């Protein structure tokens, strides 16, 4: 798409889409939204970029090999456990540290769950982007 107006508007709007997605991901454990929706929003920002600026520029931003990361996302869960241990809690006290699935009405801090949410959101965003890139690529 070779239109100056569209390019300028996408340049202006994209940072706000990123900001919105980041907000949803970081507040996923405590407010409406969730890491899946946040990751989808951040992924759709890159998809918009791909439509407007072309595949070559977008592949420079998000290379293909990022879509093949699988273990690294699962390691987010392990990372959360290690962070809890290094904060000085016992492994059996995950609930006190806040890194635990809480029941309704529990008074615990849920910020630690953001670590896992970041991993899930990353995976969702990358999957969406690579799906779209594969779709586009076969034309050439």
């Amino acid at each position, binding site marked *: 798409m070779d239109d100056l107006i569209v390019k300028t508007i996408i340049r202006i709007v994209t940072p706000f889409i990123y900001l919105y997605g980041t907000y*949803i991901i970081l507040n996923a454990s405590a407010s*409406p*939204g*969730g890491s*899946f*929706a946040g990751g*989808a*929003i951040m*992924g*759709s920002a890159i*998809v918009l970029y791909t*439509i407007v600026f072309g595949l070559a520029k977008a592949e420079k931003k998000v290379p293909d090999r990022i879509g093949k990361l699988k273990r690294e996302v699962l390691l987010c869960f392990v990372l959360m456990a290690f962070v809890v241990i290094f904060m000085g809690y016992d492994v059996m006290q995950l609930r006190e540290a806040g890194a635990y699935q809480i029941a309704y009405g529990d008074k615990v801090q849920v910020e630690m769950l953001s670590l896992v949410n970041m991993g899930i959101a990353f995976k969702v965003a990358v999957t*969406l982007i690579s*799906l*779209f890139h594969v*779709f*586009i690529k076969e*034309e050439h």
Partner: protein
Amino acid sequence: MEILNIILILFLIVCALAVERTKDLLSAIIIFASYSLVMAILWLMLMAPDIALTEAAIGAGVTTILLIATVSRIRRVEK
């Protein structure tokens, strides 16, 4: 609130019928995006903001883009 609900559901039904009746696939996709938007508002009114956010991001955003990418590869008018 009750009247707004009824109007939205009527709009939803009209959208669903129009998607089925339209021969131009690009117009059908645009109507389907508006269907998703109304569905997101309905989820919000049913006190499910989680689902509303996901519907707005996936239904109105990503699905539309993927369908348009599909239409760009095939012919535009249904026979």
